[in-house]
């Protein structure tokens, strides 16, 4: 397809305001009459609240209001699926992030002092610190229905028979860390109520309309009288999908007499109160035939969702749906448990459960290949499903599947082909290098049972430019630029004539979340649905103006031409305005869905998946156990690429986030208390840890997507985890199944290996 904007390295439209710092994030606003809000968090991970005394705090000069659960006009709870998290706790606290009271004061210092004056009589209760213990009868129940939040199960074929007939079986247990999103902008924003009771909340989020619903529910307030602005965002990665401080801002704004109120969490408060990635324990048993054909996979995954549900149930369901990799395994027994504990709160995070299971199946693929003496890429190519084939969870995959092509590309990339040479070039004699490959996939959109749609508007402005409105926020990934490219392409105009507005319940239509790798796909399709309506409006109007038939009108770049006459778009706007006609069109798109849900799966299968293969090279210091990732090759199948630069931004950022997950990152919680507090003890990769990253997209166009595009935002960080684990093995012979693979863990594994070798040689 010959295109002018789509598929090109178009510079980000929000670049200039970001590199100068002129862009105002919601946490950047400051007003002379602004008041500061603060949240009183629980002292204990699990305790009964006997009483809350706010008198002293209220009487502190400079305090404007102190609010408790008694001041919540509506429903005291929030949560995307099950609203089981109290806005302000009334009788019991279940984690140290739990909010008990709110304060608004003239200064931040006064607000902090007021918090210290609130007397809460807590009666500590037994702490549930472990997900497996939580499922036993002796553990205290954290919620009325017990500690099992959700349970999913997928069965296909005959697992027992398959294990009996198998030539080879591998079985392992994998542990994964509690990763923190570590967005650079902590949770925050501001809210204000005007004289007429109209409430505006400006707070970065991943779905303004749902945030508005949750605010309205707690305030018992007409949502039509609440405006939520949720874009731009200083990073989210799923961590701002759930309510963060929006309801606190709204409650305080009811009491600040029209003055704006601001909350901006410190990093320490963000670490304690913000959601995290679910730590998993995954037991996996995989069987294959001598020729490498996969026969069976048995998985039991337990995810620690912490004190509240948020999206925990959906995370476990997605993990189980993806727990066999992009392969066709005929016999499966897959089971997932989402469990409440007092360990903070876990929820949505880039990858959404797939990271934790991919490390299992991909490690097993490597072990099977090694035992059979097969090339690991050959083994994968033999077992992947193709479009039209049946997946491991038992559905026919109708959408585009690029796994095979990504594996072929991996096979032919320089790093893989010359891996023996690169491995021999160690930087020090005591360091060892390994090269490995892994592949994975990730569902795009919500799966079965949830509404999933995109919506966009295009408005002709007085100066003849276009305002494109999409609900999906600019989370950082560059969807605004992708939308502008699609609009410019279809409206046949220069990209500078496109302005984008996102994430504003007053200015954009409800187009769903910026999650689930869906925003380029759904938002882009919605823009692509609106654009022909705009061109039709332009042509029809020009025809009316010139008294011609619309077939005589030509849509030229940035203008209309007819009979040699040029009509600029601003003349069309003026004509429409003078004739009291609409200048705005809409486009809507429903994500294609599978018709039949897999029984017990909690929403599987997805109709659409993105695929990706990683090849990595690591160097392990055998004296210290330190692992360095030196090279990464990322081979995505994102369908047609809308913007190669934006795609690389995802593959590079995802790779480095995956390195952090595999080697460094874990929020440590002991008996319900966070031991990790800030970036001093939570280590994310710096520029020094950045390897050489190459991206080779294979474009397997997806018919349903805009210009053939699919989503990519999550799978970019998934296979690299397993690839690094296998590369450590390739380098040293030590398998690390407990992440992060810290120097201590690698060092101890090397020590054990030595011991085993000594023993076996005796």
């Amino acid at each position, binding site marked *: 397809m010959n295109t002018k904007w789509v598929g090109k390295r178009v510079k980000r439209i929000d670049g*200039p305001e*970001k*590199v100068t710092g002129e862009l105002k994030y919601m946490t950047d606003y400051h007003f002379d009459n602004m008041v500061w809000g603060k949240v009183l968090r629980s002292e204990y991970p699990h305790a009964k609240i006997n009483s809350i005394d706010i008198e002293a705090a209220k009487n502190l000069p400079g305090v404007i209001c102190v609010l408790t659960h008694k001041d919540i006009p509506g429903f005291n709870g929030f949560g995307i699926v099950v609203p089981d998290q109290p806005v302000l706790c009334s009788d019991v606290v279940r984690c140290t992030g739990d909010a008990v009271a709110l304060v608004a004061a003239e200064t931040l210092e006064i607000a902090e002092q007021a918090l210290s004056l609130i007397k809460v009589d807590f009666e500590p209760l037994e702490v549930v610190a472990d997900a497996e213990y939580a499922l036993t009868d002796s553990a205290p129940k954290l919620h009325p229905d017990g500690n099992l939040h959700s349970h999913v199960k997928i069965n296909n074929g005959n697992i027992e028979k398959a294990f009996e007939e198998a030539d080879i079986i591998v079985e392992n247990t994998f542990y994964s860390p509690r990763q923190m999103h570590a967005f*650079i902008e902590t949770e925050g924003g501001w809210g204000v109520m005007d004289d007429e009771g109209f409430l505006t909340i400006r707070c970065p989020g991943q779905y303004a309309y749902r945030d508005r619903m949750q605010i309205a529910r707690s305030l018992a307030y007409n949502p039509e009288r609440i405006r939520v602005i949720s874009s731009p965002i200083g990073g989210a990665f799923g961590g701002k999908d759930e309510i963060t401080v929006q309801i606190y801002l709204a409650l305080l704004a009811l009491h600040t007499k029209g003055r704006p109120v601001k909350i901006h969490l410190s990093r320490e408060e963000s670490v304690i109160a913000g959601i995290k990635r679910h730590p998993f324990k995954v037991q996996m048993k995989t069987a294959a035939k001598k020729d490498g054909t996969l026969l069976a996979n048995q998985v039991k995954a337990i995810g620690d969702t912490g004190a509240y549900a948020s999206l925990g149930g959906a995370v476990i369901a997605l993990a189980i749906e993806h727990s066999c990799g992009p392969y066709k395994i005929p016999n499966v027994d897959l089971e997932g448990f989402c469990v409440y504990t007092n360990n903070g709160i876990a929820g949505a995070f880039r990858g959404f459960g797939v990271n934790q299971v991919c490390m299992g199946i991909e490690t097993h693929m490597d072990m099977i290949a090694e035992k059979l003496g097969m090339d690991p890429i050959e083994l994968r190519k033999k077992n992947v499903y193709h479009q039209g084939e049946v997946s491991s969870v038992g559905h026919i995959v109708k959408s585009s599947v690029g796994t095979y092509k990504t594996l072929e590309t991996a096979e032919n990339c320089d790093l893989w082909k010359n891996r023996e040479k690169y491995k021999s070039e160690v930087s020090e004699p005591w360091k060892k290098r390994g090269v490995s490959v892994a592949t994975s996939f990730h569902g795009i959109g919500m799966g079965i049972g949830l509404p999933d749609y995109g919506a966009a508007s295009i408005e002709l402005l007085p100066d003849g430019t276009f305002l494109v409105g999409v609900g999906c926020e600019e989370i950082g990934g560059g969807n605004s630029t992708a939308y502008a490219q699609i609009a410019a392409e279809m409206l046949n105009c220069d990209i500078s004539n496109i302005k984008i507005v996102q994430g504003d319940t007053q200015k954009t239509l409800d187009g769903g979340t910026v999650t689930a790798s869906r925003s380029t796909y759904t938002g882009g399709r919605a823009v692509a649905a609106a654009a022909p309506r705009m061109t039709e409006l332009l042509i029809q109007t020009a025809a009316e103006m010139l008294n011609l038939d619309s077939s005589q009108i030509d849509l030229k770049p940035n203008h209309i031409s007819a009979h040699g006459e040029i009509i600029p778009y601003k003349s069309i706007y003026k004509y429409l305005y003078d004739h009291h006609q609409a200048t705005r069109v809409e486009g809507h798109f429903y994500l294609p869905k599978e018709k039949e849900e897999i029984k017990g799966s909690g929403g599987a299968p997805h109709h659409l998946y993105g695929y990706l293969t990683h090849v990595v090279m690591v160097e392990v210091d055998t004296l210290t156990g330190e692992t360095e990732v030196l090279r990464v090759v990322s081979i995505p199948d994102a369908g047609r690429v809308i913007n190669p630069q934006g795609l690389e*931004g995802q593959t*590079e950022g995802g790779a480095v986030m995956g390195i952090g997950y595999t080697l460094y990152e874990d929020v440590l919680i002991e008996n319900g208390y966070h031991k990790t507090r800030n970036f001093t003890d939570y280590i994310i990769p710096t*520029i020094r840890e950045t390897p050489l990253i190459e991206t080779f997209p294979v474009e397997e166009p997806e018919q349903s997507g805009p210009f053939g595009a699919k989503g990519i935002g999550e799978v970019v960080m998934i296979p690299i985890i397993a690839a690094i684990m296998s590369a450590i093995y390739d380098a040293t012979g030590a398998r690390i199944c407990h992440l992060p693979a810290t120097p201590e863990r690698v060092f101890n594994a090397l020590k054990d290996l030595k011991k085993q070798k000594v023993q076996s040689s005796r």
Partner: protein
Amino acid sequence: MKSIQFIVNGKECTVLCPPAKPLLDVLREDLGLTASKECCGKGECGSCSVLIKNEVVCSCLILAGQAENQVITTCEGVGLSPNLDVIQESFIAEGATQCGYCTPGIIVSAKAFLDGIDHVPSVGEIKTALGGNLCRCTGYTKIIKAVQTAASQKISEPETIR
């Protein structure tokens, strides 16, 4: 409260504030310069990076009183649209900004680094110079490229043409 003078982005300013107020808060709240961000408040992330006499500092760790009479440059002082610095142009061209929240701090660090050298830096040199700035979106690859691009442009056009 104390009346404190600074020269910020070439302009003399006087601020009435407690001398123990962090410079970052003075910039953001009193002077309305919000390019510099607070992310960790502990000098770990570099989001609040500014220049004091051409040296990169974390403005969350500097108190207003310590910065009295100092010459301070924030990202806004490096360049504002449409008159961007070559470093800012390169960050856009190479796609080195995503969510953008860390970007001003990185631009400031890159500015100090490139002003102090007259060659196109190696990847290793860039990694040392920007080692104190955290970014969670980009994976840093395009930032490295942008700094190199800016350096080669500076060398080919030594005089800043505005």
